[in-house]
């Protein structure tokens, strides 16, 4: 019987009523009395020297309060980078300055040059158009390998080159890996591009800066996945405002997918200008601005080699990646191709030797940072593609080849620095095969062929590291932040609870699933629990939501705080019932004394805590409010097996996805419906990357896909019905809920299934196509088929 409440129940998302009826309160819904508006003048060239900026005409335009350029930010810090990578030679990465407004040079199309604050948004925009920048266009570097060539134009004149870092991992293994590859019975080599993506959350970014003269306090309302992180970065590194004088509020957030983790220039600008002008200052991004100012994702160029012995056991993996950083280092950019990528190269397999080299490169493009999955999709894609290719070269079944190499014993220490606590890869593969009727595929293929179509089946596995992350470990790896999470549980006198969490929902349904956890622990109705998040003024310092960490880390903090509440409530109950605290049980919202018929309701005890007339005041304080911080001691490792079945029209190259199945192991599941929703969304984005989405620049650094006319977002129409299963559950061993996280899985696991399926289809039609780079548009598929003729 499925549960109807508490942990394991598909409780309806309580936030949806307001989201679906237009009653959400997003940042753009916030208007502060007296607010002015800012418009940014952005560079229309990818690389250029600023010889001057004539703002005089703009200053005289109607409604203009002030025009800002870089010179107004002297003494103000640049945007900081939160992660430092060390190169093979022991040097720290090259870390360029990242000014709020372009200083001396513009470095990508969209780089803000000047900002106009005016009474209305239209006036600000009119005046921004009247600014005359004198920019001398410089040759742009767009291609990563060209950017590293001798004599290439430099994105940052004060750096030695366009190389941010040259990272080797695990460097001590390099020689052994080289040797294993040289001596292998078979080596499969694959060169590929992991395509650049634009996150495109439905809600564009917004910032409203406000300053209160009477208290000398600044407030920033912003579209953020992690308001505390923004407060720390902007306060301490950019504007020099101590945390107690700075409040950051992120109300309802309409999707983020990673791109709303980072601290952006517009946030700092609005906060700074509000104080300068003593007026609230608001910025709402247009969709066009979003394309050229939201951090992009992916953009790796990789060569991977898989070495096998004569019995088809994997013996080594060698990988070389060029990772695009764009023009500046976005907040967590350096960590994505390194610690979120290199550490996942073992996948689900017991490959004993792995070495990866990552060269991070500056180019005249929008900065690149974490996007749903961040590093893990790139690792999974190359690994699962090269395995499929090896199976084809060796003439063995791709599923059998995977199964033969599965890790089967846990805990398992990979050769790439992480230890998987639990997993059952055979289990999810078996589930998957039961879902897709693989035996019937040959017949389905025959039917497609009869209709002039090619049919293909792609199967793959994935693993990811979630529940980010143990602070001590990431500190050693270069993180400049801790990655714990926090919760304060406040019980009110009449028994209702307010849980204040440092996590923040940008669509994941925390208000529902978090309430389920706390209500279940106490045995009360979910409606008694309110989740509060998104405001640094009323939540404990937390690191926010990304890396599928909210339930695994934030939920764990909540469990710990609730445990403290229960322990204290039992003490109060033991006093009231004159029994030993050890004998008190709490179940279904009732306190009982073992072996007696004594009983107290939850509300009786909470009332006593706040009306302590009969209360052990000499032993415990009145009140019922507890805070806990939880720092995990390992990542969590969700894993699974995915399959995709496609039909390709050989005349046009068009790919139709007929079926997509996902068998995931997320450990324990709190709300199955929410988990399914997360997987569906991830699959849609993975299919988007595989078939449709492509952020493309021309050689001069102009963004070719700068609107939805050219950037193809996945639509419902492009999706098959999804089959998802998460009944394979090996609980995480090190967090109290046994949960692993599910937010990114779909986007990680699905791109290789789609591409494997298309290659399978083309091969079945006699086209010797080994690989096609994503997105597999009709034009690309057709060209590949023709090239292979």
């Amino acid at each position, binding site marked *: 019987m499925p549960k109807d409440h508490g942990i394991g129940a598909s409780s309806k998302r309580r936030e949806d009523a307001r989201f679906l009826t237009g009653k959400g309160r997003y940042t753009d819904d916030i208007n502060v009395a007296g607010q002015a508006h800012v418009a940014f003048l952005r560079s229309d060239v990818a690389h250029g020297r600023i010889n001057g900026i004539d703002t005089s005409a703009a200053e005289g335009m109607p409604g203009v309060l002030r025009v800002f350029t870089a010179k107004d930010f002297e003494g103000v810090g640049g945007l900081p980078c939160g992660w430092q990578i060390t190169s093979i030679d022991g040097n720290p990465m090259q870390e360029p300055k990242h000014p709020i407004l372009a200083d001396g040079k513009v470095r990508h199309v969209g780089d803000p040059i000047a900002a106009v604050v005016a009474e209305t948004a239209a006036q600000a925009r009119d005046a921004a158009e009247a600014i005359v920048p004198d920019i001398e266009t410089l040759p742009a570097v767009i291609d990563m390998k060209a950017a590293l060539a001798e004599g290439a134009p430099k994105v940052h004149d004060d750096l030695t080159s366009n190389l941010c870092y040259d990272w080797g991992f695990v460097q001590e293994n390099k020689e052994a890996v080289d040797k294993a590859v040289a001596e292998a019975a078979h080596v499969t080599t694959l060169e590929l591009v992991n395509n650049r993506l634009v996150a495109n959350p439905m809600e564009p970014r917004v910032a409203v800066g406000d300053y209160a003269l009477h208290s000398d306090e600044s407030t920033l309302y912003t579209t953020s996945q992690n308001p505390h992180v923004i407060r720390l970065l902007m306060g301490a590194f950019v504007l020099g405002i101590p945390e107690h004088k700075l409040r950051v509020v992120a109300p309802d957030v309409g999707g983020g997918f990673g791109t709303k983790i980072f601290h952006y220039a517009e946030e700092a600008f609005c906060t700074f200008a509000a104080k300068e002008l003593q007026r609230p200052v608001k910025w709402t991004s247009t969709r066009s601005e979003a394309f050229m100012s939201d951090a992009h994702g992916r953009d790796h160029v990789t060569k991977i080699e898989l070495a096998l012995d004569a019995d088809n056991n994997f013996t080594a993996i060698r990988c070389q990646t060029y990772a695009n950083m764009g023009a500046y280092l976005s907040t967590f950019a350096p960590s994505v191709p390194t610690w979120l990528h290199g550490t996942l190269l073992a996948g689900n397999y017991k490959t004993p030797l792995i070495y990866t080299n990552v060269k991070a490169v500056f180019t005249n493009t929008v900065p690149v940072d974490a996007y749903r999955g961040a590093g893990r999709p790139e690792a999974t894609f190359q690994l699962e593609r090269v395995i499929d290719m090896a199976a084809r070269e060796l003439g063995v079944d791709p599923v059998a080849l995977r199964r033969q190499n599965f890790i089967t014993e846990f805990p398992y220490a990979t050769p790439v620095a992480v230890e998987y606590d639990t997993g059952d890869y055979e289990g999810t593969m078996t589930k998957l095969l039961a879902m897709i009727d693989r035996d019937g595929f040959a017949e389905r293929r025959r039917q497609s062929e009869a209709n002039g179509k090619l049919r293909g089946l792609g199967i793959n596995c994935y693993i990811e590291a979630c529940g980010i992350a143990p602070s001590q470990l990431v500190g050693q790896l270069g993180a400049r932040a801790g990655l714990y999470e926090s919760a304060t549980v406040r019980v009110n006198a009449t028994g209702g609870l307010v849980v204040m969490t440092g996590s923040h929902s940008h669509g994941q349904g925390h208000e529902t699933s978090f309430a389920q956890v706390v209500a279940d622990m106490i045995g009360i109705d979910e409606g008694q629990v309110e989740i509060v998040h998104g405001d640094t003024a009323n939540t404990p310092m937390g690191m926010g939501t990304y890396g599928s960490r909210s339930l695994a880390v934030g939920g764990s903090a909540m469990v710990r705080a609730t445990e403290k509440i229960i322990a204290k409530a039992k003490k109060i109950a033991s006093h009231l019932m004159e029994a030993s605290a050890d004998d008190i049980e709490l179940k279904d919202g009732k306190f009982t004394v073992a072996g007696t018929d004594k009983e107290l309701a939850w509300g009786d005890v909470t009332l006593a805590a706040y009306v302590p007339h009969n209360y052990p005041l000499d032993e415990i304080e009145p009140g019922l409010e507890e805070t806990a911080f939880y720092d995990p001691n390992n990542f969590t490792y969700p894993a699974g097996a995915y399959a995709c079945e496609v039909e390709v029209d050989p005349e046009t190259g068009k790919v139709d996805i007929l079926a997509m199945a996902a068998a995931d192991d997320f450990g324990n599941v709190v709300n199955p419906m929410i988990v399914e929703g997360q997987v569906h969304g991830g699959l849609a984005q993975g299919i988007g990357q595989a078939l449709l989405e492509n952020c493309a620049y021309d050689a001069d650094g102009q963004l070719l*896909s700068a609107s939805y006319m050219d950037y*193809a977002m996945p639509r419902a129409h492009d999706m098959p019905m999804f089959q998802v299963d998460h009944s394979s559950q090996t609980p995480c061993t090190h967090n109290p809920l046994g949960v692993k996280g599910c937010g990114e899985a779909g986007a990680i696991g699905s791109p290789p299934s789609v591409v494997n399926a298309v290659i399978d289809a083309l091969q079945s039609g006699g086209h010797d196509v080994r690989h096609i780079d994503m997105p597999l548009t009709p034009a690309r598929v057709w060209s590949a088929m023709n090239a292979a003729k």
Partner: protein
Amino acid sequence: MYDFTLTRPTTIADAVSALQGEDAQPIAGGQTLLPTMKARLAQAETFVSLTGISEMRGISAADGVLTLGGGATHATVAREAAASYPALASLAGRIGDPAVRTRGTVGGSIANNDPSACYPAGALGSGATITATGPNGSREIAADDYFQGMFATALEEGEIITKVAFPIPEKAAYEKMLQPASRFPLVAVFVAKYADGVRVAITGASTDGVFRWSEAEAALSGDFSPAAIEGLTPPSNDMISDLHGTPEYRAHLCKVLTARAVRSAQ
């Protein structure tokens, strides 16, 4: 968007005279114009809305001709022309999404002549006659003379399209391969078989905008079957090269889609 004044005449005569004003431009469904205005790429002192002119909205079929008012929306055509000219109704019914079809108009599409728009293929493929009304009255322009290259037409300053007359063919079909992002045609082909011959109009493919593939027309006029064009080399009219397809791919699609249109023509 820049500031502008909107006028809403209710007759063609009033619209034509409003367009005589300084820096005035017609706006119909706004499905091309509004996004351009929002991006500040289009601007006019006065926009003259054509949506309130009922005499421009009619649809009628008589004597083998389907006549659409210049202001007829895609949704109306999809619905009301389905019986008389199913291939054209199907073309209209596949433009954009329901919101676009509810606002967008025949006149707007043909006036704009986007190199990837659908209606130009329907009009050229049907040998339609476009009625343009201006300060000097109305004149009729044959589709063959009307489409003059990407975004270029025979319309004069101050003229509006008030009517488009489509001779109804024996058989016709519209085959559209979607550009994955915009869902405009990547390439689309309109094939129409008349008693005196076959017309093949192709959109989305050429930098010169919509064009007729005369070799295919000749072959199909003799034998209206996919086999008739098998031996032809695809047209080579300055094919568009962009993110979504190479010139070779577009040329290839011209042929594939023509064959498919012939196969599905009814």
